[in-house]
């Protein structure tokens, strides 16, 4: 039961995460410690969330963070997303490929 009244993230992030959860788990505000897998985030929904986050924020998640841990909780996911935004080039260049595998 998360009681922190201040939202630790942008509204858009919360909407994107809630948008891929099954209806019975779509409770705002999103608990940062919510077990997303238990809440119904299956692998298909995880892929969908990844694609939507990358589009919305203009970032590319490198291979190294594409794992269950990244998508374990909203807090973990927000942390990874924030890191990617910080390292992403200010102008998102589609041609450069910073993610060597």
């Amino acid at each position, binding site marked *: 039961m998360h009681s922190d009244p201040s939202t630790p993230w942008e509204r858009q992030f919360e909407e994107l995460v809630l948008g891929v959860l099954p209806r019975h788990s779509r409770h705002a505000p999103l608990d940062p410690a919510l077990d997303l897998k238990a809440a119904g985030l299956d692998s298909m929904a995880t892929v969908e969330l990844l694609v939507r986050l*990358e589009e919305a924020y203009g970032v590319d998640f490198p291979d190294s963070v*594409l*794992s269950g841990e*990244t998508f374990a909780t909203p807090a973990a996911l927000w942390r990874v997303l924030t890191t990617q935004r910080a390292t992403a080039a200010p102008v998102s260049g589609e041609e450069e490929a910073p993610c060597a595998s």
Partner: protein
Amino acid sequence: MDLTAAARPPAAAPGPPGTLGALLERAAAARPDARAVRDRAGAWTYRRLDGHARAFAAWLAERGVRRGERVLARVGNRREFAAMLFGTARHGAVFVPVNPAMRPFHLTQVAADCDPALVVARADDPATLAALREATGRPVHELDAVWRRVEGLRPPPDTAAVPPRVSPDDLALLLYTSGSTAAPKAVMCPHSSVLFAARAIASRLRYRADDVVLAALPLSFDYGLYQILLAALAGAEVVLTEPDRHVGLHAVLREHGVTVVPVVPSLAEMLLRLAGRERSAAAPPPVRLFTNTGAALTAPLVAGLRRAFPGAAVAPMFGLTECKRITVLKPDGDLAKPGSVGTALPGTRVAILDEAGRPLPPGHTGQIAVRGPHVMRGYWRAPELTAARFRPDPATGEVTLHTGDFGHLDEDGHLYFHGRRDDLFKRRGVLTGALEIEAAALDIDGVTAAAVLPPGPDADLTLFAVTELTPGRVLGSLGERLEGSKVPAVCRVVPALPLTPNGKTDKQRLRRMLDTPQR
């Protein structure tokens, strides 16, 4: 293709019978230093896998497990699974794999039904083992602890009890199927039938020694499990992944140079969605072959795979756990025979029967029936159910498996699958299959997934669709493609279709959704 014509399968059945233990021994002798199986933690060569399998057999002996007793395994897609599969077979016990995602309610039923000597389970958290002991009422051993002991038994001491003699007629596996019946039922799989099926499939798909095969599907599902056997026959490598790695599946494919990918529709969809975000600079993974069974790929998915993985062939197949596999279409055979799932495995026969059990000529739709050494022994401790589906010929005794699936054969013996018996129905006097309506729905631009529930006592014909279109638009477009009796009364737009752990559309859950009012 008359089932009654010849009593015996052709003599050219591929390979001699044998045991699963012998299969691994041969692979380890032929390619000792080739990689056999890899998971997140690392890889084992065939020599090491064989060593671990022998050590696990010794561990079973140490625990007093006897020939024919069941070993329930809840370990998921880890390389220890392969060692346990072969080790249990070597010991002469029966391997019973279950999905770690199986709920305690279901697991309790499975444990009561298969009556295992012991359970080996991965503990996701400390509460799991206690819950498993409670649910199964059996000794439950934690996987990592078992493996520390198994490491100590490798190589097994000479004083270890000589493993019981294993006959090809012994049961190697009990595979629980996700059938439509309420109680769990397991298919009894003898060594001989499992090996016959694996060799027959291998003769069609031709995995090579340099192949790297992805097993992203659960190993508790026969489609996943047989990847280990097919790889051992070829001396190839299997890469095991679990659902939490699916979001990084393209990276896995590239990193390990995966060349063969068995898919169900949900996995293919995921691969395509991931391919869409790949940078154009990244070389596509070196996949050369996609195989498909369990649930059929839709035409748009097949086309998508060919686009995203240039050079990869697609091999549609058809089967059920009761005989493992019925047909395999040769890679890219769908280009000449669209919609077909292939011809009968070599050394087996398939026929289409009418309601009286008489063979039907090509082009006629009826129940798919199968004969051959791949037909398994029946259902575990369920003689009535076995008698209904596995029917011995009164004269020869040879068993015909009545699959409960419907389809037709063409003049060349290519099978076309129309649906489960439950999916066929009459509406306004017209016989229709759910698959036909689903295919028409997928033909509509903007519909990405579709599932049909036949009319029931509480609801008329209903379509569930994943789409951005309105229900009215979907039904209108269906009306342009199907006669009126086949157009559903209701279309429900859903964000995703519910799936079983094996990747099939979960129609029981769809049924329950009918009871909940729409938003």
